[in-house]
């Protein structure tokens, strides 16, 4: 296979943790800084081989979603960031998911360094946990209360108005 010093890859193959392969075009993959860095590194080495990027932390279900997001955003990559249609799409995209899926998607966005998806997920989760009680938050995040009743009462008293 011929190799050239100024090579340019058009596609990469991404492998999920459960060993499924996804062929992704470069523009879409570049939405993830992790994938983009891999592509850039390979291009610098001047290889024309199709590269395989294994993602040991992302299942194929979640990878499908991340790539769906990347594909949509690659389409709008040249538009300005405030595109209303894209914002609407983002919102509809996340609305479908339960907490477990949102959780995995947020971690995948973090792992794949897809900053805009990560911000979107964090904002979406934040919006969904506003105005809840402490008990509801503990349930959602599966957190055990490690305060003594006295400690908890003291913290409440510091800013009692916030509990009204």
């Amino acid at each position, binding site marked *: *296979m011929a190799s050239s010093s100024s090579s340019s890859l058009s596609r990469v*193959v991404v492998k999920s943790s459960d060993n499924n392969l996804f062929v992704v075009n470069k523009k879409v993959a570049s939405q993830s*800084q*992790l994938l983009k*860095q*891999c592509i850039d*590194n*390979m291009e610098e080495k001047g*290889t024309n*081989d*199709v*590269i*395989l*990027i*294994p993602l040991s*932390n992302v*299942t194929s279900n979640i990878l499908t979603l991340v790539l769906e997001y990347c594909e949509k955003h690659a389409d709008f990559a040249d538009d300005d960031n405030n595109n209303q249609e894209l914002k609407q799409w983002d919102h509809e995209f996340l609305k479908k998911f*339960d*907490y*477990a899926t*949102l*959780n*995995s998607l*947020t*971690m995948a966005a*973090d*792992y794949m*360094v897809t900053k805009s998806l*990560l*911000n979107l997920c*964090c*904002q979406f*989760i*934040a*919006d969904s*946990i*506003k*105005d*809840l*009680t*402490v008990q509801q*938050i*503990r*349930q*959602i*995040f*599966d*957190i*055990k*209360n*490690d*305060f003594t009743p006295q400690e*908890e009462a003291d*913290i*409440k008293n*510091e*800013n009692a*108005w*916030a*509990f009204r």
Partner: protein
Amino acid sequence: MVTSCRNDCQHVSTMVATSKDGDGGGLCLSEDLIIEILSRLPVADLLRYRCVCKSWYSVISCSDFISKHLENYYQNDRSWHGCLLALYYVTQAELNMFELSIDETPKVLASESLENRPMYGSFICGPCDGIYYLFNGCDGERERALWNPVTNELKALPPVFTKPDLPSNLAYSICEAFGFGFDPLSKDYKVVVVKCYCSEDYELAETVTLPASVFVYSLRTDSWTYCGDLSQIYEFDMPSNQCYRFLDGSYYWLLSSGAKSENDCVISFDMTIDAYQEIHTPIYEKPASRSLAIYHNSVAYLSFHEIKKDLVIWMLNEEGLWTKKFTIGPLSGIRSPIGHWKDDKLLLDSDDGRLILCDPVTQETRDLGFHSGLWCEGIFVYRESLVSLKDCSQSCQCHDEAQAHAENNRP
């Protein structure tokens, strides 16, 4: 042929999530991600969620988190952009603040006095990052403090020292202009006061010949510095002390000269270099009420003629000269200009205490549907924060350049 680039990927992957996928149907995220999410919540929620567990308590109390919250919450939550506080001075003891939302349809969100205001009869200035400066100049002992009403933290400031060469027959008068803000360069919160003098002997009050002095307080060092004296004597119109944040860290006050004198003066104070400047105001037609505002990223001087009822807007250019930008009117039923909203609208006070929004270009006015029989003292963008005053060095670190920009939050 397929080549693995796993080795290349490893060193670029700086943000590897370590926790496993949530399997209990809920959220199970690393602390970094929890911080990202919590930093987008309102202050009231955060104060409540400190009770969730010990690790959340320490996260929410940490200065790095507080700083991240200032950045993330106010950038991502657009709703606060439409909110402002209108300040009404009722009596020495009472100050009413109303929270208005004027982006879509004007409405009053809440109308309450700032409860438990810690210093009786104090003037208030700010907020900057949710912190207010309080000044009680009405009795013999001068009290000054910084206050975060959300967390109810109050920090008393040391008294301003007397400048070394002050003649013995003079004392500080209760009149002063003051401002509170953040210096993005030294990452420090600062209070600036312009203090004038009076004679100890009331009979000789008119004979004071000493111009006012400028002092600046730094939260980081918890001390005052004397910056110098103004070049001439101005009258201070105490209740209408108005300071405005400006993009480059400078603050501006209008020192009224009263009806008898010719010269009004605008004092600017550059927080980054602790230097002040006196700028003469344009010659306006009297009798008129005046105010400062920000218009299209410049300081604007508003004068409203009390009989003709026309509003003139001057803008300050980079050379420090005023250019007349608009003359609007007559605007019947208006008594004074108050300030501005966003970058291109003005706020006016009507004869019967209603707030009026005015677009100087189209000359359209809109009644904000909010009425108080009292005299409006000022309008501020509503903003609250977790910034702590307990540990000065901590709260000062709480800020970086990006926030200083986001912080440009005057209406």
